């Protein structure tokens, strides 16, 4: 204990290591009474504070789902805004319990960074945004352009690879913070803005003249975005990942925030098992939670479709289509393994 304390004090100052990554994250979370969730510093629709200072968004709802599964109360979350640079250190050091910050799942992050990914809450791909006045129709016309990009992201690497592979020249204009990239693009410091397409939609909204910018059709990479946890705590990993699958499964069952109580009376054994009303079910307790965990998630934030539509769907300013993120039964990639 003393050792952890000292390392916390000194390490935080010297190396940014807040405390040792301890094994039983669930116990830790239960004893402190909330989930510490690492989110974006501000990406409309995904994670941004509203005018009252409450965090809302697609990734934020995911944090709430985890809190609902553990405490039966979706509000028991505290948010740590993280930059692209600080996010992994924040997670590795134990400053946050999980990272729900539009972060791409790659093998090197899974291995060398000591993180664990499995559930993908948003299948994305990298795209380009340019001012309409440039009259660009395809990314292949972009040779010689100045490209704004956030440093330390997979985006930055894909950009270099794409231009090299297609034998195009470009001038990188690189910033650490999203806000600075936005400001530079707005000021005309660069011709092109590149990041995940979902991000481009969100960023375009924040520009002073969204209608004058167009997102090019090319998608140059696979960007499976999802929550990440530290390696070495399988129980916590399971909880965080299955909370995500519960959202997807609820959509598949047609269980919504509104009808979840009614669904408890369903005769479908799959649904009864999912909501923890089947006799002798042990699914929740085996996770280290109560058997009502999935019920609490749906009651707290709704199902995947509700979370999607509320934050980034057709009725929001972002107007993102489900596309790859439709259920597998509707031609998309969102597929939950059986919950039984």
């Amino acid at each position, binding site marked *: 204990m003393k050792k952890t304390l000292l*390392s916390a004090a000194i390490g935080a100052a010297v190396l940014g290591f807040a405390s040792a990554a301890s094994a039983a994250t669930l116990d830790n979370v239960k004893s402190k009474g909330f989930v510490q969730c690492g989110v974006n510093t501000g990406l409309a629709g995904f994670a941004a504070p509203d005018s009252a200072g409450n965090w809302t968004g697609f990734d934020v709802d995911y944090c709430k789902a985890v809190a609902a599964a553990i405490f039966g109360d979706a509000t028991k979350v505290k948010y740590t805004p993280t930059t692209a640079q600080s996010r992994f250190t924040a997670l590795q050091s134990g400053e946050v319990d999980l990272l729900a910050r539009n972060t791409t799942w790659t093998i090197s992050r899974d291995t060398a960074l000591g993180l664990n990914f499995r559930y993908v809450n948003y299948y994305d791909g990298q795209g380009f945004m340019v001012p309409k006045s440039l009259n660009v129709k395809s990314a292949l016309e972009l040779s010689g*352009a100045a490209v704004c990009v956030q440093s330390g992201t997979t985006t930055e*690497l894909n950009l*270099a690879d794409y231009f090299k592979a297609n034998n195009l020249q470009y001038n*990188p204009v690189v910033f650490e913070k999203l806000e600075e990239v936005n400001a530079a693009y707005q000021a005309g*410091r660069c011709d092109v803005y590149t990041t995940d397409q979902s991000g481009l939609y969100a960023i375009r909204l924040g520009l002073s003249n969204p209608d004058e910018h167009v997102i090019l059709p090319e998608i140059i990479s696979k960007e499976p975005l999802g929550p990440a946890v530290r390696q070495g705590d399988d129980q916590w990993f399971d909880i965080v990942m299955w909370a995500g699958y519960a959202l997807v499964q609820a959509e598949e069952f047609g269980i919504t925030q509104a009808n979840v109580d009614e669904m408890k009376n369903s005769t479908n054994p799959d649904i009864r098992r999912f909501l923890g009303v089947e006799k002798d079910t042990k699914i929740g307790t085996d996770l280290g939670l109560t058997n009502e965990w999935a019920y609490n998630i749906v009651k707290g934030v709704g199902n995947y479709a509700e979370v999607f539509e509320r934050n980034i769907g057709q009725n929001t300013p972002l107007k993102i289509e489900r596309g790859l993120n439709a259920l597998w039964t509707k031609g998309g990639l969102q597929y939950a393994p059986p919950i039984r």
Partner: protein
Amino acid sequence: MTDHAVIAPSEAGILRSYIYDPKFRGIFFQLLTLITVVVVGWWIFDNTVENLARSGTASGYGFLRGRAGFDIGQALIPYTSDSTYGRAIFVGFLNTVLVAVFGIITATFVGFIIGLGRLSKNWLIARLCTVYVEIFRNIPVLLIIFFWYKGVLDSLPQVRDSIALPFNIFLNNRGLAFPRPIWGDGAWLIPLALVIGIVATMVVARWAKQRQIATGKQFHTVRAGIGLIVGLPFLAFLAAGAPLTFDYPIAGRFNLTGGTRILPEFVALYLALSLYTASFIAEVIRAGIRGVPKGQSEASFALGLQPSHTTRLVIVPQAMRIIIPPLTSQYLNLTKNSSLGVAIGFPELFSTTSTTLNQTGQAVEAISIMLTVYLAISIATSLFMNWFNAKMALVER
């Protein structure tokens, strides 16, 4: 003291005599400090290693040989995304050195002028210099950097409305583009001539000084020196058949292509660091000159020296001894403040190293590299300034 020696040596008495023994006390506390430092240091090291092992992250410096995969906007040496992480960090290091060197030169120059200006008998000049110092000294340097950067981005025209200056120089909010010289065959004669010119000037200066000591006659060393240092390379340039062509910046579809470009990020950081540090240097200069006793200039005037000679030969050499040590601190501050360039996306050491950190996840290693490099730059600067200080110090006879 002698009291203790007389008292019969009881056990408590011996202990007391140890407590009051300055030599023993000195050794005891030094040992205590040393042990504390070593234990705390070991503790940090041990905990870091343990936590790293527990978090399952890779460690070691092998990642420096890996392919970086990202591009850098301004590189003084050839760099592509195929280069290594080590080279990316080195590119950042060179950019840090570049902005530090240019910043130090400009800050010293501006600081000298402002510092002397504050001592001016002209009311307006003295007040203007005071206003300058008070403004720049009292605003955080990060704010000044943002001020210049936003100023550059917002006030200069878009790339398609570039301001065209003479000699194919273009100015827009993506920087200043100017023709890049391409040297042809025989161009090596020019630097050679420059070196010869410098050496010859040094020889002339030595000869002129000896002649002045011997005969009292003065010689225009400065004019001869300019002639040698500028004239000789120019003659060499003509002799080699003017082997110089230019790569001109041309408006492409998106950007100006070709030529050399000075990035707005560099300009903003350079201006901010120079002007900020200059305000501190001005105060150092003023303090240094004020620190020379008035009797010195009075004596100099009494000997019949002109005011300009009094300043150059009597006041400044003595003021330098006061100025140099605090000046060193200002140089170190400027160099370290250059890491704030990361805020406006200038690819200096901190920026490229933290990108490397983020792409590889090697936090401890990357930060240790940064610590070491900044420390090395600072120590090198200090050593140079200490040497310079020793040279300028009063030679006592």
